[in-house]
């Protein structure tokens, strides 16, 4: 029982990371109908920049973990702007339907190569800001860092939700997502909103990167698998449902940790992918996805 509880806790922590990355996929999809397939690389870059600031790899530490967060978030946002300007905007301008797919993948590969050259190909340990001794909750031992992952992910998503509902800029983002032409008539610069959504998307990925880095290893290749699984989560939960990615993320995270323990670590990715295939064949808009009804 204690073991199951422990697996659930780790699964939830992992799932929240997936949810944060998937949230980033949603944010750009909502405003522009495009996705950054280099989202995993945005996560990886965020983690490595964080490591350079808070770790010893670049002669540091220059900042402690908490002070490292603002510059990492800023870096993530700027990286998102670069992705939008270079890979996405030209495709939107020429109304190329699939151009952005190839260009965001290409840019992601370039980012990975650059990271390999700067930080090397090996995985590096990331210093944990919290004690590494597990704490005991109902007999299960949980890493304090795992709790921070869950809290951090929730705080970030609630923060964005608050921004969208309470501020005029957030309302403009929501308006752009529902009707771009009409939003333009309101005086909203919708291409700026799209750039912003890319900044937000990469910023959340960078945040996810520094959240998960202390419980895994950090390296140029860490983002590829996470980015792909988060994409599966976004599809499972629904590309337009915030609740969907949280539920989808936790489902996938728990499926992985339990399969890894009870079946074999070699098969831990299988249940999630089966879930993905099931959702796609039964409810293609995702578990919580809304099929939009247009009133004319």
């Amino acid at each position, binding site marked *: 029982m204690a073991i199951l509880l422990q697996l659930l806790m780790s699964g939830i922590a992992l799932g929240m990371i997936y949810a944060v990355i998937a949230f980033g996929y949603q944010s750009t999809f909502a405003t522009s109908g495009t996705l950054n397939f280099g989202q995993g690389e945005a996560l990886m870059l965020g983690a490595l920049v964080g490591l350079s600031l808070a770790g010893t790899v670049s002669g540091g530490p220059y900042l402690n973990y908490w002070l490292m967060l603002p510059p990492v978030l800023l870096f993530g946002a700027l990286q998102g702007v670069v992705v939008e300007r270079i890979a996405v905007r030209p495709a939107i301008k020429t109304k190329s339907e699939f151009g952005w797919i190839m260009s965001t993948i290409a840019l992601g590969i370039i980012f990975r190569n650059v990271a390999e050259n700067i930080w090397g190909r090996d995985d590096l340990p990331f210093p944990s800001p919290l004690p590494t001794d597990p704490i005991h909750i109902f007999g299960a031992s949980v890493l304090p860092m795992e709790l921070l992952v869950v809290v951090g992910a929730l705080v970030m998503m609630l923060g964005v939700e608050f921004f969208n509902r309470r501020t*005029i800029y957030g*309302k403009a983002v929501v308006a752009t997502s529902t009707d771009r*032409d*009409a*939003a*333009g*008539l*309101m*005086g909203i610069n919708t291409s700026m909103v799209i750039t912003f959504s890319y900044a937000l998307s990469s910023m959340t990925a960078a945040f996810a990167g520094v959240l998960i880095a202390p419980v895994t290893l950090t390296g140029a290749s860490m983002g590829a698998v996470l980015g792909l699984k988060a994409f599966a989560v976004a599809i499972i939960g629904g590309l337009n449902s915030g609740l969907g990615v949280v539920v989808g993320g936790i489902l996938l995270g728990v499926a992985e940790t339990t399969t890894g323990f009870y079946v074999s670590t070699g098969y831990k990715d299988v249940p999630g992918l089966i879930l993905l295939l099931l959702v796609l064949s039964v409810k293609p808009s995702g578990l919580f996805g809304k099929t939009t009804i247009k*009133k004319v």
Partner: protein
Amino acid sequence: MLKVENLTAAYGKVSVLHGVSLTVRKGQVVTLIGSNGAGKTTTMRAISGMLVPASGTIRLGQQDITGLPAHRISRLGVAHSPEGRRVFPTQTVRDNLLLGAFSRLTFGRARGDVEGDLERALDLFPRLRERKDQLAGTLSGGEQQMLAMARALMLKPEVLLLDEPSMGLAPILVEEVFHIIRRLKEEGMTMLLVEQFAAAALGVADYGYVMENGRIAVEGPAVQLQDDPKVRAAYLGGGH
């Protein structure tokens, strides 16, 4: 105030406007009538920047606004209540109205009394006051139309473009919409009105243009168009 000259526009390879010219003077209500597909909505879309014209010029006062993106034209004071209403269904009535005033609310300071204008808009459309915290998508068609108009007014525009404000509405609501247009006219609002109900539109307008196949076929003071036998036969005949 607003001057359109030799405007041509196309959707892909299909050209829909072939040299449209029209003028709206300050304080005037000008109506654009004509059958479906004549190019009325396209003309409106080109003025507000939803569509980039192929050629021709559009001037707002002294300024050339041809081909500017919609948000810049909006910030210069052109409000467009578009065809099909286009309210933001997942946001509340109040949020929709605030978005109408978006360019007055940005950069941390409100330009003018936005809250006061919100109250005035709700006074003008009392049905919206009752529903101000409801999601716009839950409103009836008529209420959505009123919201679209109120939202456009929140900009405090120099020129208000109204595209088919009566479309799909019950007769009693059509009357209400025209009552409001008349009230705005008394307050001195400059308006360009596209309408199916040609008789009602000419009744409220100072000047009118009749469009046919992407061209202006007839133009003149509204009272004159009302008596024009050709216009009467084509657009005012029958039940009106």
